[in-house]
């Protein structure tokens, strides 16, 4: 079995090379010129950058084949669970999933309401015991956000059926 970080580096290297190809091909399809007259055209930096991504991706990929494994490097076949710990994957899903739901519901519930629910949900999903504190946190944070962003900074936040 390959040490986990070397395997991860291979994935990173391959993904980087693929990204560079995508950037280059998209630039070509958008007809971004490399040079226009004497000056670099709109495609100059994207093409140079795509080459850079490919080169550094290739270096990382090559390093994963040539480099020696660290003495303490874990040797397990499961790259995902080796690099991303189980607790962190749960945190990732909780935080990113709740945030997506907040954005999706904001136009209907209002940003403050959905954010209050979101704050409470994140705190609960990340491991806060009990419900009383969670409910108070949701309500309290909504009030604080309202005072800071709506009253103090006068940001026109999307409103829901409750009027805030």
């Amino acid at each position, binding site marked *: 079995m390959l040490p986990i970080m070397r395997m991860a580096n291979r994935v990173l290297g391959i993904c*980087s090379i693929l990204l560079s190809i995508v950037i280059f091909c998209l630039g070509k399809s958008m007809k971004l010129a490399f040079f226009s007259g*004497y000056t670099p055209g709109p495609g100059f930096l994207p093409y140079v950058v795509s080459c850079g991504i490919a080169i550094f991706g290739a270096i990382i990929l090559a390093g994963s084949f040539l480099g020696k494994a660290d003495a303490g490097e874990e040797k397990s076949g499961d790259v995902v669970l080796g690099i991303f710990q189980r607790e962190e994957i749960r945190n990732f899903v909780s935080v990113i999933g709740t945030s997506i739901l907040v954005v999706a519901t904001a136009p209907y519930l209002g940003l*403050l309401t959905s954010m209050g629910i*979101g704050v409470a*949900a994140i705190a609960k999903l990340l*491991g806060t015991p009990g419900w009383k504190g969670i409910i108070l946190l949701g309500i309290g944070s909504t009030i604080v956000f309202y005072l800071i962003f709506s009253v103090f900074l006068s940001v026109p936040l999307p409103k829901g059926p409750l009027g805030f």
Partner: protein
Amino acid sequence: MVFLQNLMMLPQNLATGFSVLADPVNILYSFLGVLAGVIIGALPGLGPSMGIAVLLPLTYGMQPVTGIIMLAGVYYGAMYGGSITAILINTPGDSAAVMTTLDGYPLTQKGKAGKALGMAAFASIIGGTVCVVAFMLLAPIISHFAVVFGPSEYFALMVLGLTSIAGMTGKSPAKGFLSACIGLFIATIGLDVVTGIQRYTFGITNLFDGIDFIPVAMGLFGIAEIISTKDTSGKLKVTREDIRFKNLLPSKEEWRICVPHIARGTVLGFIIGMLPGAGATIASFLSYDLAKRTSKRGHLFGTGVLEGVAAPESANNAASMGAMVPMLTLGVPGSGSTAVMMGALMMFGLTPGPSFFEKNVEFAWGLIASMYVGNVFLLILAICGLPLFIKILNVKMPVLNGVVMGFILIGSYALNNSLFNVGLTIFFGALGYILKKLEVPSAPMVLAIVLGFLTETSLRQAMILLNGNFLGIFSKPIASTVLILALLLAFGTPIKKLMGWLIAKRKVAH
């Protein structure tokens, strides 16, 4: 000559700065910035970059000088705050406080938490204040010489900023450069300023103005940290007696031992802080090492000696001041935190660079004056606010993370009242976490987004002036020197490794 001129103008400039700061609103925001910075810095995993990125939305609508005074307060407040958890629970608040754990935590175990916290505060404040003086003397001089910079020199400086931070951040230079390249690509998204052609926008109108660095910084520094933060609440075992005022003050003997290390740490930290890419973490590592080698009690380092706390703490605060010099005078931020600060300045319509001190006298000197006052606030808070910070550290991390997420998401909406930005923040949060686990540093990406537009514009202007001859940049002495320096920084480590490998191979062959 320039130095003398600058010295003569100093009282007048300082008076201007303090007159700007005399506005009670500015003093209040300086205090709030330092307070928020210390709290954020003290929370494990949350560093100055995240603090500045998360609190940036609170500066919308403020006077630019007020906003930047607050963010500067967050910056140096967080630099000190990182030492609180490093000393009390052996968990550094940010990477710059790692060295403080080595002697800080053993001191806590010996029942000397108060002494360690007190020395960390004094060393930080001495380092910070001395370096504000150095900053004040040096910055206008660098600006004066940099006024002659044209597009070629600017382009070279941008390349230096990008290569140095990419080459020196994280474990692998290749990953740092990859991160910078991705950042440069993100910076190209939007309408091309010269031709008006859409680049990688796919017809999405929200992308026409490009991707702002704020959602990216909030996602990469904020959300990614929240996902990987461990709960450390309940680990604190400090009694009220430990942090009594008299226990925080070092004795005469302790001062005698620590002052030389604070002085060396301050000078070293300031110089390293000014180098693009080096930053406070490297400064604290080197300062600790220097203190260990120069101390009569070097063999006791790691067992709980006060100079082991004083040296890295003075260096990391000095480095944070030093990092302001290239950011304000040359427009080249030296770290992730200063990259976010530079982005904030640009958000306020100010462009840091050679003419910054000339064009924005009130702003620049107001900021310098705020640093003096901010360091006094830091001292007061470090001594009087400790019970409050310890209480905050006992708040459950999930609760804090929930509230910080709320700030990040509403803050990114408030940037230009668009849910699209919130989506971008979430996307970069997820990407930042994955990159973090793959050991790809985020700071070069944020820096590249901040510098991307300026890099491309200065290159285009330089090419027009040089009739399309790229090599013509090397005919300009300043630009060529800076570019060679950038190349050395970029490829210095691989060349050194290759040379070492060749020498070793030759030895084996013989």
